[in-house]
């Protein structure tokens, strides 16, 4: 019973983190699906979302507003707006001019952008990590009769539910809306979509904006969940999310969700049963293994080399 509770606890922790990874992974997977590049700066967009949310929360507190729903919604909206604007600007400045050149050129540009944004926040907000208030407190406890009590916090439920809502909204958007249809067309064949009169530049911008907005949601959620943020925390999270995207099959949105969950669970199991220090080793190891043995991921489509 104890073991089962402990295991379930790890599972819950893993699924929580994993669903947040999935939110970030959407940004990687959509951009890759459409223009075939790794948006290396996406982790920084997420970090900026978290900072903006924190600034909004603190600002509201200074103004004396204490009603939780207002705080959360304002923080969420602010973070989404700033991150989306950032995503748009990054694409415009660093990626659009190099689109279509040799594969490594956009990637190096993206790495430069990532370093730039990291230091931009570092210079503006300092390098120390800064506390993030846990606005949603409390939890359900299970099996508290023994030494180990499994807890499912309201925060974890919030993360789950929010992710679910975002994913559903995104799926509906992609499958139903005009822009979503255009997105699918562009990801199938950019040149053809262009010929058919789709404004591909607009669609690509839209992809970056959507990805950034979802990353901002993840920024707010994980900021609250971890309880502190710093300018570097986007980097590792970005790598993890990228791993999730590759794991699920890059370019596939359900794949990002699946990959995020698998990654989150394997990480928390490593922390729970092995050691927290090695959880990053496990996720990077997983990334390397997937790329080596199944580079198309779990739900990705195989690519045929064109000669």
């Amino acid at each position: 019973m104890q073991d089962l509770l402990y295991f379930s606890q790890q599972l819950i922790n893993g699924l929580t983190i994993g669903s947040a990874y999935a939110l970030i992974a959407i940004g990687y997977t959509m951009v890759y699906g459409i223009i075939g590049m790794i948006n290396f700066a996406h982790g920084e967009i997420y970090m900026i979302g978290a900072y903006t949310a924190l600034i909004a929360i603190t600002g509201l507190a200074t103004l004396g507003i204490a009603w939780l729903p207002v705080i959360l919604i304002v923080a969420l909206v602010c973070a989404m707006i700033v991150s989306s604007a950032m995503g748009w600007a990054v694409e415009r400045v660093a990626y659009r001019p190099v689109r279509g050149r040799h594969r490594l050129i956009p990637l190096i540009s993206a790495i430069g952008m990532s370093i730039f944004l990291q230091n931009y926040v570092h210079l503006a907000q300092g390098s120390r990590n800064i506390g993030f208030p846990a606005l949603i407190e409390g939890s359900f406890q299970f099996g508290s009769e023994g030494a180990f009590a499994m807890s499912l916090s309201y925060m974890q439920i919030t993360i789950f539910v929010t992710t679910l809502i975002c994913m559903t909204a995104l799926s509906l958007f992609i499958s139903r809306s005009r822009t979503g249809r255009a997105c699918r067309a562009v990801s199938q064949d950019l040149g053809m979509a262009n010929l058919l009169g789709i404004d591909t530049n607009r669609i690509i911008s839209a992809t970056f904006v959507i990805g950034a907005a979802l990353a901002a949601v993840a920024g707010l959620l994980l900021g609250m969940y971890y309880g502190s943020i710093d300018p570097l925390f986007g980097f590792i999270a970005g790598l993890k999310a990228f791993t999730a995207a590759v794991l699920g099959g890059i370019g596939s949105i359900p794949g990002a969700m699946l990959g995020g969950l698998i990654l989150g669970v394997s990480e928390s199991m490593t922390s729970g049963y092995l050691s927290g220090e090695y959880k990053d080793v496990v996720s990077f190891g997983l990334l390397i293994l997937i790329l080596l043995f199944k580079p198309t991921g779990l739900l990705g489509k195989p690519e045929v080399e064109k000669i």
Partner: protein
Amino acid sequence: MAAQNLKHALFCAVITLIISYPILGFNLEAEGINIILNGAETSTIVMVFLAAVVVFLFQLFRENIMATLKSIPTPLPQANKEPMAENKRARIESWVLTAIVVLALFWPFFVSRGSVDLATLVLIYIMLALGLNVVVGLAGLLDLGYVAFYAVGAYTFALLSEYFGISFWMSLPLGALLAALFGLVLGFPVLRLRGDYLAIVTLGFGEIIRILLNNWTSLTGGPNGIGGIPEPTLFGMEFGRRVKEEGNTSFHETFGIAYSGEDKVIFLYLISLVLAVFTALVIRRFMRMPVGRAWEALREDEIAARSLGLNRTAVKLTAFTIGAFFAGFAGTVFASKQGFISPESFVFLESAIILAIVVLGGMGSQLGVILAAIAVTILPELAREFSEYRMLIFGAAMVLMMVWRPQGLMPMRRIHIELKKQE
């Protein structure tokens, strides 16, 4: 058209405000357990609005500005000139390089200890960048975990000297070979991956090495690192005030000169110089050899190269291994120079800096990479107040280079093999 332009310019200005005002305009500060929000200084706010205005004006008159920019003749002198004759250029280049090396040999005796120390660091970066240049510039493989091989070299020396008392000179080849071995073992499975996947895998590998160094406390000392790494000796002569190792003599006593702390700094500098020159020469030679041509062919058109019987894994592996080898070299020198190493020195940012040097200098171009290494290491030291902006500027420079001049400041000039006319 004008109305649309105005709309677009306004939009860009608003975006500029949105992405800069919240982050720059407010400062989060911890006060006890609470966090408070302070407004930034007025000057910052003014700058933010000024930036928005600049963006607005630029976007509004974008076409005119671009047209004006195009009409200005390029400031680069080579752009319009006829390229020099092949052999003439090669001769001038080798004269310049020789002159630089000769100058570098005598220079440390006339400057301060701090400058020599910095110059040693520059040389280490030159070695690293030349090595990475083989991988990225010549073979076209983006390696984002290059610093891992640097770490292998440094830790090999540190551990060998700590546990077995092995000297710098023994460790130098060992560290380089071990780093090369790591390159070989890692490279073998991953080099068949496509370019951008390879980049991510090497990044993951670099992080794994760092995490292991950080956590394998019993061996590596974890985050505390390893100290007391010895300096190189000259034919058994030590450069310290007192001889540490039995059987060694001390440099200043042997030559009957007064002890000076500078001797050892200069000695280390000279070793680094010799090693850097060695690195440059060896790689230069590789470029003219079959292996160099194979790297280039594979970078230009992998499918054609394979169709001609080039084994893609083997060819890429040589580049990867050679790059790792020189990183191991640099790592050993670095460990000896610092006397202390910890995982802090081998973070991803370090890989990014080395990559930035290669990219700025011009992928594939040795002279460009050397100049970029000098600039990137020395500029932040020259302007201290500017040094906290160093990484910000690096990042921006990488983006700008990719957008405007992906071939780098000094693009690679190929060393052609000439077919001589047969009489």
